[in-house]
């Protein structure tokens, strides 16, 4: 892995962010809107509910964590789309750049920007709605890590789909988190799902995170064993996603699709 080449991929995105407030805007503003919207909703639910239940950590915390996963995936895919929109694959892949270095560059961008989003979300949730994730201390880190790895796996898979299917696949990949969310039990326990949906939830790493978070919010100790299963699954998906991406890359090099993004058609 050549650091200069990985750095070039990161620098390209940094230049884009530096000269374009509209790219910086979604990192902070969309997540802030989500926190404000769900923050007030949870306050309202607290005020009308007779149950001795605090909706703030349960719902607002869930939104915050789910937004984090979605943002990791989107940031990675957006970085790849910058090369799709500018028809830049031929320019990049005709250099000594390795596909693993390209992917590493995208990952660094996704990690950095989604961490910035997370900090903004945590700060706003604390200041505006008194939701302090810091109260959970380092126990929070494994939950975030599982979501983080899952988000990267989804982002890598989505990027591979874009590489294979072309720019039009944009419409296919943005709804991916939305399709997963009903099965992941973001806002409700998995137990309320029908049996077949529960079976799907068992293979989704985020479902272990949200079940675990609900247990912690209810005052129980973190279910480390369940979280370990979620973490293991997330790692497996990440490895599979990377293998899928490399296989798609080999395929588009074989068929000439990568050159067709900008060159005259070859068939």
């Amino acid at each position, binding site marked *: 892995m050549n650091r200069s080449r990985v750095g070039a991929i990161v620098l*390209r995105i940094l230049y884009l962010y530096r000269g374009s407030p509209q790219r910086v805007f979604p990192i902070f503003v969309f997540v802030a809107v989500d926190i404000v919207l769900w923050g007030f909703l949870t306050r309202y639910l607290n005020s009308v509910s007779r149950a001795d239940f605090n909706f703030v950590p349960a719902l607002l915390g869930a939104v915050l964590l789910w937004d984090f996963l979605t943002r990791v995936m989107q940031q990675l895919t957006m970085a790849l789309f910058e090369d799709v929109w500018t028809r830049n694959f031929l320019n990049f892949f*005709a250099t*000594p750049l390795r596909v693993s270095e390209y992917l590493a560059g995208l990952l660094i961008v996704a990690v950095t920007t989604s961490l910035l989003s997370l900090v903004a979300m945590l700060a706003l949730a604390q200041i505006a709605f008194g939701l302090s994730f810091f109260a959970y201390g380092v126990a929070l880190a494994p939950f975030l890590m599982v979501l983080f790895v899952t988000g990267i796996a989804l982002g890598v898979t989505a990027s591979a789909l874009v590489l294979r299917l072309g720019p039009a696949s944009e419409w296919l990949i943005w709804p991916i988190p939305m399709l997963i969310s009903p099965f992941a039990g973001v806002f409700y326990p998995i137990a309320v799902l029908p049996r077949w949906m529960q079976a799907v939830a068992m293979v989704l790493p985020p479902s272990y995170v949200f079940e675990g978070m609900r247990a912690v919010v209810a005052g129980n100790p973190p279910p480390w064993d369940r979280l370990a299963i979620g973490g293991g699954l997330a790692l497996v998906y990440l490895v599979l996603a990377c293998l899928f991406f490399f296989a798609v890359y080999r395929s588009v*090099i074989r*068929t*000439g699709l990568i050159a067709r993004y900008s060159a005259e058609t070859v*068939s």
Partner: protein
Amino acid sequence: MDSPSPPAVLRVERLAKSFGDLQAVDGVSFHVAPGEIVGLVGPNGAGKTTTINMILGVLEPSAGRIEIEGVDLAVDRSRALSSTNFAAVYAPLPGNLTVEQNLRVFGMLYAVDNLSARVERLLAVYDLLRYRRTKAGLLSSGEQTRLSLAKAMLNRPRLLLLDEPTASIDPSNARDIRAGIAKFVDSGHCGVLWTSHNMYEVQAVCDRVLFLSHGRIVLEGDPKTLPEEHGAASLDDLFVNVAQEALHAGGAT
């Protein structure tokens, strides 16, 4: 006693590429020596860009072998491409980066030493200093071509692939660019594979020309003497004759 000829910067052996039933490139072999400009010409669909894409490592050959500076592209793509660069009219640099940013990003991809000085030098050579903070997408097509050529020179390539490099440039600029590339090649450091539909340009610049038709090299030689050797008035006429012969041969099969 003759001194041994230097090893080729590019050696292509029995290169082939098929897309389903279509044989785009069909067993092509040639080489480019250091200090040599080789023209690759042929009608549209002859297989020029497919050949270049394979040499650039963005298209996997169905068969054959490509060696750049003695390095097999299929074995060590990254090392082979580190001494290569290219400019093509159909591959403009990202329009949402400035001229200078583009050169810096691509300079890092080629791990260019002393990158800042190299970028400054190329900005001056290609008359891009006043556009350094201009987004590449806002440049005229001629300025974009100059930027592509500046990018192509970043790593002082041993093999330079130019796909119609002067297609969108006015005659005066085109002449300057041809002269600049010829001077660079004259140092004996670099070999060039140059595709063009402009036979005047090919005759003026190339030491050797390869006529490609239906994926095969059908004619090869010195562009200055080839027309006479084949009873044509000019390279333009020879091009038309070869293209038509190939068309008839293709139609007969």
